[in-house]
Protein backbone atom coordinates (compact mmCIF):
# COMPACT_ATOMS: atom_id res chain seq x y z
CA UNK A 1 0.00 0.00 0.00
CA UNK A 2 1.46 3.37 -1.07
CA UNK A 3 1.26 6.32 1.29
CA UNK A 4 1.51 9.95 0.33
CA UNK A 5 4.16 12.11 1.95
CA UNK A 6 1.43 14.18 3.60
CA UNK A 7 -0.17 11.09 5.16
CA UNK A 8 3.20 10.00 6.47
CA UNK A 9 4.02 13.43 7.90
CA UNK A 10 0.69 13.38 9.73
CA UNK A 11 1.29 9.88 11.03
CA UNK A 12 4.97 9.90 11.94
CA UNK A 13 6.09 13.57 11.84
CA UNK A 14 5.04 14.70 15.33
CA UNK A 15 6.46 11.59 17.02
CA UNK A 16 9.82 11.99 15.27
CA UNK A 17 9.99 15.73 15.98
CA UNK A 18 9.05 15.06 19.61
CA UNK A 19 11.66 12.35 20.09
CA UNK A 20 14.44 14.43 18.54
CA UNK A 21 13.29 17.55 20.40
CA UNK A 22 13.54 15.73 23.72
CA UNK A 23 17.01 14.40 22.89
CA UNK A 24 18.29 17.82 21.79
CA UNK A 25 16.80 19.77 24.67
CA UNK A 26 18.41 17.34 27.11
CA UNK A 27 21.82 17.97 25.53
CA UNK A 28 21.31 21.75 25.60
CA UNK A 29 20.36 21.52 29.28
CA UNK A 30 23.62 19.67 29.94
CA UNK A 31 25.59 22.45 28.21
CA UNK A 32 23.76 25.06 30.26
CA UNK A 33 24.41 23.11 33.47
CA UNK A 34 28.17 22.99 32.75
CA UNK A 35 28.22 26.70 31.90
CA UNK A 36 26.22 27.45 35.05
CA UNK A 37 28.65 25.57 37.32
CA UNK A 38 31.70 27.10 35.67
CA UNK A 39 30.23 30.62 35.86
CA UNK A 40 29.59 29.86 39.54
CA UNK A 41 33.21 28.77 39.93
CA UNK A 42 34.39 32.06 38.41
CA UNK A 43 32.15 33.89 40.83
CA UNK A 44 33.62 31.89 43.75
CA UNK A 45 37.18 32.74 42.65
CA UNK A 46 36.30 36.43 42.31
CA UNK A 47 34.73 36.45 45.75
CA UNK A 48 37.88 34.88 47.23
CA UNK A 49 40.00 37.48 45.39
CA UNK A 50 37.91 40.25 46.92
CA UNK A 51 38.71 38.75 50.32
CA UNK A 52 42.42 38.84 49.60
CA UNK A 53 43.23 35.45 48.00
CA UNK A 54 45.34 36.16 44.89
CA UNK A 55 43.46 35.31 41.68
CA UNK A 56 44.96 32.29 39.91
CA UNK A 57 44.95 33.59 36.33
CA UNK A 58 45.81 30.19 34.80
CA UNK A 59 42.99 28.49 36.68
CA UNK A 60 40.60 31.29 35.77
CA UNK A 61 41.57 30.99 32.11
CA UNK A 62 40.87 27.21 32.21
CA UNK A 63 37.34 27.89 33.46
CA UNK A 64 36.76 30.43 30.68
CA UNK A 65 37.91 27.85 28.13
CA UNK A 66 35.45 25.29 29.54
CA UNK A 67 32.61 27.77 29.12
CA UNK A 68 33.71 28.59 25.56
CA UNK A 69 33.79 24.88 24.75
CA UNK A 70 30.21 24.46 25.94
CA UNK A 71 29.07 27.53 23.97
CA UNK A 72 30.52 25.93 20.81
CA UNK A 73 28.84 22.62 21.70
CA UNK A 74 25.46 24.26 22.30
CA UNK A 75 25.84 26.25 19.09
CA UNK A 76 26.39 23.02 17.12
CA UNK A 77 23.31 21.46 18.73
CA UNK A 78 21.14 24.48 17.95
CA UNK A 79 22.43 24.54 14.33
CA UNK A 80 21.34 20.90 13.97
CA UNK A 81 17.96 21.77 15.44
CA UNK A 82 17.64 24.64 12.99
CA UNK A 83 18.53 22.42 10.00
CA UNK A 84 16.04 19.86 11.26
CA UNK A 85 13.33 22.50 11.63
CA UNK A 86 13.85 23.51 7.99
CA UNK A 87 13.98 19.92 6.73
CA UNK A 88 10.36 20.08 5.58
CA UNK A 89 10.80 23.30 3.60
CA UNK A 90 11.48 21.53 0.29
CA UNK A 91 9.54 18.36 -0.56
CA UNK A 92 12.12 17.53 -3.25
CA UNK A 93 15.78 18.50 -3.16
CA UNK A 94 19.25 17.15 -3.81
CA UNK A 95 20.64 15.98 -0.46
CA UNK A 96 24.24 15.28 0.49
CA UNK A 97 23.93 11.78 1.99
CA UNK A 98 26.84 12.09 4.43
CA UNK A 99 25.58 15.44 5.70
CA UNK A 100 22.17 13.86 6.28
CA UNK A 101 23.76 10.95 8.19
CA UNK A 102 25.70 13.42 10.36
CA UNK A 103 22.54 15.40 11.06
CA UNK A 104 20.37 12.34 11.79
CA UNK A 105 22.98 11.01 14.18
CA UNK A 106 23.60 14.42 15.77
CA UNK A 107 19.90 14.85 16.51
CA UNK A 108 19.58 11.50 18.24
CA UNK A 109 23.11 11.36 19.67
CA UNK A 110 21.87 11.35 23.28
CA UNK A 111 19.64 8.32 22.64
CA UNK A 112 22.51 6.41 21.04
CA UNK A 113 24.89 7.50 23.82
CA UNK A 114 22.46 6.24 26.45
CA UNK A 115 22.64 2.83 24.77
CA UNK A 116 26.43 3.11 24.96
CA UNK A 117 26.85 2.37 21.25
CA UNK A 118 29.83 3.81 19.38
CA UNK A 119 29.25 4.93 15.83
CA UNK A 120 31.98 5.25 13.22
CA UNK A 121 30.78 7.14 10.16
CA UNK A 122 33.00 6.81 7.08
CA UNK A 123 32.14 9.35 4.42
CA UNK A 124 32.37 8.62 0.69
CA UNK A 125 35.46 9.94 -1.10
CA UNK A 126 33.21 11.87 -3.51
CA UNK A 127 29.95 13.43 -2.45
CA UNK A 128 26.92 11.22 -2.91
CA UNK A 129 23.50 12.74 -3.40
CA UNK A 130 19.96 11.49 -2.88
CA UNK A 131 16.87 13.21 -4.24
CA UNK A 132 13.82 13.71 -2.06
CA UNK A 133 12.70 15.30 1.17
CA UNK A 134 15.39 15.91 3.79
CA UNK A 135 12.87 15.31 6.57
CA UNK A 136 12.01 11.84 5.29
CA UNK A 137 15.65 10.96 4.64
CA UNK A 138 16.50 11.90 8.24
CA UNK A 139 13.50 9.91 9.45
CA UNK A 140 14.51 6.88 7.37
CA UNK A 141 18.15 6.93 8.52
CA UNK A 142 17.10 7.43 12.15
CA UNK A 143 14.48 4.64 12.04
CA UNK A 144 17.11 2.19 10.82
CA UNK A 145 19.73 3.46 13.28
CA UNK A 146 17.34 3.23 16.21
CA UNK A 147 16.10 -0.25 15.29
CA UNK A 148 19.61 -1.56 14.70
CA UNK A 149 21.08 -0.19 17.93
CA UNK A 150 18.09 -1.32 20.01
CA UNK A 151 19.40 -4.87 20.20
CA UNK A 152 23.14 -4.29 20.27
CA UNK A 153 25.05 -4.92 23.47
CA UNK A 154 26.48 -2.00 25.38
CA UNK A 155 29.84 -0.93 23.98
CA UNK A 156 29.17 -2.22 20.46
CA UNK A 157 30.74 -0.45 17.48
CA UNK A 158 28.46 0.29 14.54
CA UNK A 159 30.16 1.25 11.27
CA UNK A 160 28.19 3.38 8.84
CA UNK A 161 29.59 4.09 5.39
CA UNK A 162 28.20 5.67 2.27
CA UNK A 163 29.30 4.10 -0.99
CA UNK A 164 28.34 3.55 -4.59
CA UNK A 165 27.68 -0.16 -5.01
CA UNK A 166 28.61 -2.41 -7.94
CA UNK A 167 25.43 -1.28 -9.77
CA UNK A 168 26.45 2.37 -9.30
CA UNK A 169 23.61 2.87 -6.88
CA UNK A 170 24.02 5.10 -3.84
CA UNK A 171 24.12 2.92 -0.74
CA UNK A 172 24.32 3.52 3.00
CA UNK A 173 25.80 0.52 4.75
CA UNK A 174 25.36 -0.33 8.45
CA UNK A 175 27.76 -2.98 9.80
CA UNK A 176 28.46 -4.42 13.20
CA UNK A 177 30.28 -7.45 14.61
CA UNK A 178 27.11 -8.36 16.50
CA UNK A 179 23.95 -9.42 14.66
CA UNK A 180 21.05 -6.99 14.38
CA UNK A 181 17.52 -7.96 15.36
CA UNK A 182 16.14 -10.68 13.10
CA UNK A 183 12.83 -8.87 13.02
CA UNK A 184 13.87 -6.12 10.67
CA UNK A 185 10.39 -5.18 9.52
CA UNK A 186 10.18 -1.45 10.04
CA UNK A 187 6.68 -0.32 9.32
CA UNK A 188 7.41 3.38 9.23
CA UNK A 189 10.73 3.19 7.40
CA UNK A 190 9.23 0.61 5.01
CA UNK A 191 6.83 3.26 3.80
CA UNK A 192 9.56 5.89 3.69
CA UNK A 193 11.64 3.56 1.50
CA UNK A 194 8.96 3.94 -1.19
CA UNK A 195 9.45 7.70 -1.24
CA UNK A 196 13.11 7.20 -2.21
CA UNK A 197 12.46 4.11 -4.33
CA UNK A 198 14.91 2.53 -1.96
CA UNK A 199 15.30 -0.94 -0.46
CA UNK A 200 16.83 -2.25 2.72
CA UNK A 201 18.86 -5.43 2.34
CA UNK A 202 19.91 -7.46 5.38
CA UNK A 203 22.64 -10.07 4.89
CA UNK A 204 22.38 -13.69 6.05
CA UNK A 205 24.45 -13.14 9.20
CA UNK A 206 22.21 -10.21 10.16
CA UNK A 207 25.17 -7.99 10.89
CA UNK A 208 25.06 -5.88 7.75
CA UNK A 209 22.17 -3.85 6.40
CA UNK A 210 22.40 -1.90 3.14
CA UNK A 211 20.07 0.95 2.38
CA UNK A 212 20.14 1.16 -1.41
CA UNK A 213 18.64 4.22 -3.06
CA UNK A 214 16.84 4.06 -6.37
CA UNK A 215 16.86 7.80 -7.10
Amino acid at each position, binding site marked *: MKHTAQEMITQYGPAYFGRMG*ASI*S*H*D*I*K*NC*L*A*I*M*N*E*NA*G*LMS*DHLMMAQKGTPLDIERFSE*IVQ*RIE*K*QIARADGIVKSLNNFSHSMDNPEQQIDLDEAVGLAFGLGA*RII*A*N*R*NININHTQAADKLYVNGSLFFLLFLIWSILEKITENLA*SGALLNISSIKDENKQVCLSFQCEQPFASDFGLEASGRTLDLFQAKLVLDDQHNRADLIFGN
Partner: protein
Amino acid sequence: MSDEKVLIIDDEQEFTQALAERMTTRGMTVSTSSSAIEGLKNVEEHSFDVVVLDLQMPEMDGIETLKVLKKKKPELQVILLTGHATVEKGIEAMKLGAMDLLEKPADLTTLTEKIKKAQAKKMILVEKKAEERIKDIMETRGW
Protein backbone atom coordinates in the same frame (compact mmCIF):
# COMPACT_ATOMS: atom_id res chain seq x y z
CA MET B 1 27.27 18.03 62.64
CA SER B 2 30.06 16.58 60.46
CA ASP B 3 30.68 17.61 56.85
CA GLU B 4 28.29 16.16 54.30
CA LYS B 5 29.81 13.29 52.35
CA VAL B 6 28.47 13.56 48.81
CA LEU B 7 28.88 11.44 45.69
CA ILE B 8 27.98 12.98 42.31
CA ILE B 9 27.19 10.45 39.54
CA ASP B 10 26.93 12.03 36.08
CA ASP B 11 28.45 11.18 32.70
CA GLU B 12 29.14 14.88 31.98
CA GLN B 13 32.58 15.05 33.60
CA GLU B 14 33.01 18.80 33.14
CA PHE B 15 29.79 19.24 35.09
CA THR B 16 30.79 16.96 37.98
CA GLN B 17 34.26 18.53 38.15
CA ALA B 18 32.95 22.10 38.48
CA LEU B 19 30.09 21.19 40.81
CA ALA B 20 32.41 19.15 43.05
CA GLU B 21 34.85 22.04 43.32
CA ARG B 22 32.10 24.48 44.30
CA MET B 23 30.63 22.08 46.86
CA THR B 24 34.06 21.41 48.34
CA THR B 25 34.56 25.18 48.77
CA ARG B 26 31.31 25.14 50.77
CA GLY B 27 32.66 22.57 53.20
CA MET B 28 31.36 19.32 51.75
CA THR B 29 33.45 16.22 51.09
CA VAL B 30 32.77 15.35 47.46
CA SER B 31 33.58 12.38 45.22
CA THR B 32 32.56 11.97 41.59
CA SER B 33 31.78 9.03 39.29
CA SER B 34 31.21 9.30 35.54
CA SER B 35 28.96 6.24 35.21
CA ALA B 36 26.39 4.35 37.23
CA ILE B 37 28.62 1.26 37.40
CA GLU B 38 31.54 3.31 38.74
CA GLY B 39 29.19 5.08 41.15
CA LEU B 40 27.80 1.83 42.57
CA LYS B 41 31.35 0.57 43.09
CA ASN B 42 32.18 3.82 44.86
CA VAL B 43 29.17 3.42 47.17
CA GLU B 44 30.26 -0.17 47.99
CA GLU B 45 33.73 0.97 48.93
CA HIS B 46 33.06 4.27 50.70
CA SER B 47 30.52 5.81 53.00
CA PHE B 48 28.33 8.67 51.71
CA ASP B 49 25.43 10.61 53.15
CA VAL B 50 23.99 11.76 49.85
CA VAL B 51 24.21 10.76 46.19
CA VAL B 52 23.48 13.39 43.55
CA LEU B 53 22.47 11.29 40.56
CA ASP B 54 21.89 12.15 36.89
CA LEU B 55 18.72 10.66 35.47
CA GLN B 56 19.99 9.95 31.95
CA MET B 57 23.26 8.09 31.61
CA PRO B 58 24.75 5.47 29.28
CA GLU B 59 24.47 1.79 30.23
CA MET B 60 22.38 2.24 33.37
CA ASP B 61 20.03 5.19 33.82
CA GLY B 62 19.28 7.09 37.03
CA ILE B 63 16.10 5.19 37.88
CA GLU B 64 17.83 1.79 37.60
CA THR B 65 20.78 3.10 39.61
CA LEU B 66 18.42 4.47 42.26
CA LYS B 67 16.78 1.02 42.63
CA VAL B 68 20.17 -0.65 43.18
CA LEU B 69 21.38 2.07 45.56
CA LYS B 70 18.24 1.84 47.71
CA LYS B 71 18.47 -1.95 47.79
CA LYS B 72 22.13 -1.90 48.83
CA LYS B 73 21.94 1.03 51.27
CA PRO B 74 18.36 2.01 52.17
CA GLU B 75 19.48 4.83 54.45
CA LEU B 76 21.47 6.53 51.67
CA GLN B 77 19.74 9.70 50.46
CA VAL B 78 19.49 10.27 46.71
CA ILE B 79 18.84 13.56 44.93
CA LEU B 80 18.17 13.18 41.21
CA LEU B 81 19.34 15.75 38.69
CA THR B 82 17.82 15.83 35.25
CA GLY B 83 17.89 17.82 32.03
CA HIS B 84 14.15 17.64 31.83
CA ALA B 85 11.97 16.27 34.61
CA THR B 86 8.68 14.78 33.48
CA VAL B 87 5.98 14.41 36.11
CA GLU B 88 5.96 10.63 35.54
CA LYS B 89 9.70 10.31 36.12
CA GLY B 90 9.47 12.48 39.22
CA ILE B 91 6.69 10.36 40.73
CA GLU B 92 8.53 7.13 39.84
CA ALA B 93 11.73 8.44 41.47
CA MET B 94 9.90 9.46 44.65
CA LYS B 95 8.13 6.10 44.87
CA LEU B 96 11.51 4.41 44.62
CA GLY B 97 12.79 6.45 47.55
CA ALA B 98 14.53 9.44 45.99
CA MET B 99 14.58 12.37 48.36
CA ASP B 100 14.19 15.01 45.66
CA LEU B 101 14.46 15.72 41.96
CA LEU B 102 16.05 18.90 40.60
CA GLU B 103 16.21 20.20 37.08
CA LYS B 104 19.51 21.19 35.42
CA PRO B 105 20.95 23.78 35.58
CA ALA B 106 20.41 23.62 39.32
CA ASP B 107 20.86 26.49 41.74
CA LEU B 108 23.71 25.58 44.09
CA THR B 109 22.09 27.24 47.11
CA THR B 110 18.96 25.11 46.60
CA LEU B 111 21.03 21.97 46.04
CA THR B 112 23.12 22.68 49.17
CA GLU B 113 19.97 23.10 51.29
CA LYS B 114 18.61 19.80 50.00
CA ILE B 115 21.93 18.05 50.69
CA LYS B 116 21.92 19.33 54.28
CA LYS B 117 18.34 18.12 54.78
CA ALA B 118 19.25 14.78 53.18
CA GLN B 119 22.22 14.33 55.49
CA ALA B 120 20.05 15.07 58.54
CA LYS B 121 17.47 12.54 57.33
CA LYS B 122 20.17 9.93 56.83
CA MET B 123 21.50 10.50 60.36
CA ILE B 124 18.02 9.93 61.82
CA LEU B 125 17.65 6.70 59.80
CA VAL B 126 21.07 5.46 60.89
CA GLU B 127 20.34 6.23 64.56
CA LYS B 128 16.95 4.52 64.32
CA LYS B 129 18.58 1.48 62.76
CA ALA B 130 21.18 1.40 65.54
CA GLU B 131 18.46 1.65 68.23
CA GLU B 132 16.55 -1.22 66.63
CA ARG B 133 19.71 -3.32 66.54
CA ILE B 134 20.42 -2.68 70.22
CA LYS B 135 16.81 -3.48 71.10
CA ASP B 136 17.01 -6.67 69.09
CA ILE B 137 20.26 -7.73 70.79
CA MET B 138 18.81 -7.02 74.23
CA GLU B 139 15.68 -9.03 73.47
CA THR B 140 17.41 -12.04 71.90
CA ARG B 141 20.09 -12.24 74.60
CA GLY B 142 17.64 -11.63 77.41
CA TRP B 143 19.58 -8.75 79.06
